[in-house]
Every structure is written in structure tokens, then in C-alpha cells.
């Protein structure tokens, strides 16, 4: 049999991620890149980079699923699935006992509750406001002169987290600078930011019901300080994986694979017809 692959391309608001799976569900290639204004090109680049990473020809990839905020821009794909389904699927693939996924991405936060067989029971997400999302951390990190990848390690030193009262990202940015001017320690401020987001996320999770196991996905799950704050507030451990940011893409690739296995025509989702 000819060598075949499937791909999932997750075009988020901030980053584009791609995953290549072989027919045995092994991840053979992945990529991550920032989203520029040229979303369609970024999607394609992410895909090509993943092919490169896998060391395969793009022609070998027989079915591609697009997902994420910019899913309609994955014009070279055949399937389109919302990121909610994909994150859930990806999380369950890596952590099979997942019953609740928390996805904090660049511009949105979602809580998804899953059933025994991975079916989505319920989900909720935040609304058109950047408060409580990755962007909130990006902006505040900037104001403190850190890069987001520093936030985790820095907050580790914190003893007394500063309470951040503003929910609006813009006000929080000012608040952060003021706190700094008042001589509060950067680590305490960063930790305060983490707690503030943790609180908002938990309230979102409560909307669908907090049940074990919880898997944390999306770019913000790479922030170890966020993981700590969440675990502290929830009083339990949560799953995180180095692949967390790719869960959406992994889920998307799995959808492609399942379709292929079903032998069905890739006219699966009605999404592709409209823009």
C-alpha cells in the first residue's frame, strides 16, 4: 500500500499550527508559526513546514482538516471542523480520560466537557473581549518588559501575589505599571495576573461542570505559572503536555483520519460552502 498521511491545520488568532499523522496515528510532523495578516498564506506555510518536519512530500497528505478561528482560510484542505470539536478530540487522544478541556488561546478561552466516548456534552466560551485570554498576558507581559515565555519561571519566585482588580486588558496594563511604580515585585504582579485569569477560567469551567480529568490546552498552557495558579485554585492536578498548543491541530488531523477510515467522501462538513 502506498504511504499515506493526513494533516490538521489549526489557524488560531495568534498562531497557526499544523500536525501530520500517519495512518497508525503517529505524529510524524508538526509546526507552529505566528499568524500574520496574510492568514491563508500562514496556514499554507504552517502545513508545508509540518510536511518538511515529517520529511514527506505534500502530495502524500491525502486529507487535510482546517480548524480554528481562521479555519475557512485553509483553502487547500477538504474538511472544516470547529476548534471546539478539535481541541476536545486532541485532548482525549493524548489524555484518554479527559472529561473537561480548558483551552486558553490568544483571543479566546473555552471550556469543553466531554463524555466517556469523547463526545462533547457541553461547552462555553468567553465573548468578544480580550480579558482573560492569552492576549491579556501578552499585553501585561509587554508592560512589564517580559516575554510571555518568561512568565512561568518568574512567577515561581512569588510569595505574595498582587491582586489585579481590572478585568479589561487595557486597564490591567496600566494597573500593572502602577503596581510596578509602587514598588511591588514583578513576580508578585505576574502571579497576580495568573490568578486573575485562573479565576475567570474556572468560572467558565463551572458553567459546564468541573469533572476529572481536566486537560489544559492552547498556547497559554505552556505557561507553567498559569498551570500552577489553576491547580492551586482548583485544588487538583490538571493534565498538560508539551504538545498542548497542538491539540487542536491533532484533533483536526484525527478527524481527517477517521473520515478516511470510514471511506467516506470528504464532503463531510457543510462549512466549506459558505464564507
Amino acid at each position, binding site marked *: 500500500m502506498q504511504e499515506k498521511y493526513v494533516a490538521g491545520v489549526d489557524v488560531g*488568532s495568534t498562531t497557526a499550527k499544523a500536525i501530520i499523522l500517519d495512518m497508525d496515528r503517529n505524529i510524524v510532523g508538526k509546526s507552529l508559526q505566528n499568524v*500574520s*495578516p*496574510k*492568514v491563508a498564506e500562514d496556514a499554507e506555510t504552517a502545513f508545508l513546514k509540518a510536511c518538511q518536519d515529517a520529511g514527506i512530500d505534500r502530495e502524500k497528505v491525502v486529507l487535510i482538516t482546517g480548524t480554528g478561528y481562521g479555519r475557512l482560510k485553509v483553502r487547500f484542505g477538504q474538511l472544516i471542523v470547529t476548534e471546539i470539536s478539535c481541541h476536545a478530540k486532541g485532548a482525549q487522544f493524548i489524555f484518554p480520560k479527559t472529561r473537561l478541556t480548558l483551552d486558553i488561546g490568544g*483571543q479566546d478561552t473555552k471550556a469543553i466537557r466531554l463524555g466517556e466516548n469523547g463526545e462533547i456534552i457541553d461547552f462555553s466560551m468567553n465573548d*468578544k*473581549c*480580550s480579558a482573560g485570554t492569552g*492576549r*491579556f498576558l501578552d*499585553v501585561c507581559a509587554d508592560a512589564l518588559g517580559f516575554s510571555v515565555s518568561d512568565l512561568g519561571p518568574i512567577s515561581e519566585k512569588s510569595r505574595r501575589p498582587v491582586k489585579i482588580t*481590572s*478585568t*479589561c*486588558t*487595557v*486597564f490591567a496594563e*496600566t494597573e500593572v505599571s502602577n503596581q510596578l*511604580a*509602587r514598588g511591588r515585585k514583578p513576580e508578585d504582579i505576574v502571579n497576580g495576573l495568573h490568578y486573575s485569569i485562573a479565576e475567570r477560567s474556572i468560572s467558565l469551567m463551572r458553567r459546564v461542570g468541573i469533572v476529572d480529568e481536566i486537560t489544559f490546552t492552547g498556547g497559554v498552557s505552556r505557561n507553567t505559572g498559569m498551570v500552577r495558579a489553576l491547580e492551586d485554585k482548583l485544588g487538583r492536578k490538571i493534565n498538560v503536555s508539551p504538545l498542548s498548543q497542538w491539540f487542536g491541530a491533532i484533533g483536526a488531523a484525527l478527524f481527517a483520519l477517521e473520515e478516511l477510515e470510514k471511506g467516506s467522501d470528504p464532503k463531510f462538513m457543510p462549512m466549506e460552502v459558505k464564507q
Partner: protein
Amino acid sequence: MITAGIDIGTGSTKGVLLEDNEKIIARAIKPTKGSPGKMATEIFNELLETSKLDKGEVDYIASTGYGRYMMEERQIQISDLTTTGRGAKFIYRDKNPSLILDIGTQSSRAIRVDERGKIIQFKMNERCAAGSGRFIERCSRYLVVPMEKISETAMKSTDPQKISSVCAVLSETEIINHVSQGIPVEDILMGVFMSIADRAGTLLKRVKLDAPVFLAGGLVHMPAMKKALDEVLDQEVISVPEAHFSAAIGAARLGYQRLQKIKK
């Protein structure tokens, strides 16, 4: 008699020295950085320097703005809504304003005043920064147009591009998208001004938009803001650069009033 009004805002600190309630003999402005209390002192000292006056020659100091409680030297602190109303009334005195729109760094407020400049009604943004000056500052940063050039650039626009996102932060993505589609920066910037004007319009309608609107706050320096407001509100909005000092002037004038009372 000399009174000082110091307006410690979230973005900038402004101060004036007023002689006999009428004549502005010194003014100063600086971005607010570090401790608001120190900022206020700095501005005050600058005022003394410009006017060549001695500290003891200033009869009364009134502070206002978000940092009003932090200025040690103050004799009184007054809320920035009150002072903006009074100050704007004074600055625009020949036109007898009753509706004032104050857009500052983080705030936007619609204020209705009576004959004397007393506030009768006001509405303000509360938790969301989408309609405030900060939005423009952020745009300046990621569109790489310096603040001094923002308005000038926007004024060149022939086809303003609407911003649909309501969030000052999330609209970044949209704006960057516009850039990539080759939409000229000036049209995008004008769109940003229009979106702020839209929000201001809603605020104004909540206190009833039934009179000419007078602008106060830092955005008076931006003709583009006025242009956007003119269009959105469908009227000629009145704006002069001096109105950036509305709150400071209002504070100094109310300080004068207090002084008169005390002296009696």
C-alpha cells in the same frame, strides 16, 4: 491672587497657575510616570519656574484627576468631572457650552453642565477602554505611526475603514488584517477615530445629544478626532487645544472660589 490647578491623569499630568481667576500665567504638562504624588510636585515646580514665582506666592493649590489624593501640597482635591466641567465652561465661555465630551487616556465622559458650569448629569465608560485615548496609543504602537503624526495621517483618509471589533485589544488583529489587505494606514486610523467617536456618541446620547458638543481632554490635539466626531454626531464639534487643560483650569478656578470663601 494666584491659584494652582494640578490635574494628575492616568496618562499625563497637567498644571496651570491662574491669576485672579482669569489669567493663566503658566502651564505645564508631562506624561504621568512613576508616583503620581511626585509627578504633581514636578509639575508644580515647573509652573513656579515658568512664572518665576515662589512657592509662598501661590495662595491655593487644588488637585484633580485620578491622582488627586496623592499630591501632598494640595489644599483641596476636586473630582475631575467637576473640574473639567468648570474648566471647559471657562475656556469656551464665549460660546456658552452645555455639553462636554472629555476623552482622556483611559476615560471617556459625557458631561452636561448648567449656566455656571455646574454638573447636572454625566455618563462615563466604566470597565472597558475601547473608547478612550489608550486605543489610539496602542494603534500608534503597532501601526508604527508616532503619536504626533497620528492625527495628521488620519486626516489624509478618503475612505475610512470601519473597525468592527468592540475590544480595543482585539481590534488589533482586525487592523493588521486591514494593513495586509493593502488598505492605506490613513483609512485605518480614521476608522479607529470613527470607532471612538461612535462610542462617544452613545455616551452623549445617554445624557441627550441636544446641544453643540465641546471637546475636552488630550484628544483636542487631534483634528482627526474632531473630524470623526463631526461626522458621527452630525454636527460641528468644537475643540481648542487649550481644552486639554480643562480640568487643571477648572481646579484652579474652584480653588479661587474656595479662597474667596475662606477669606470672608
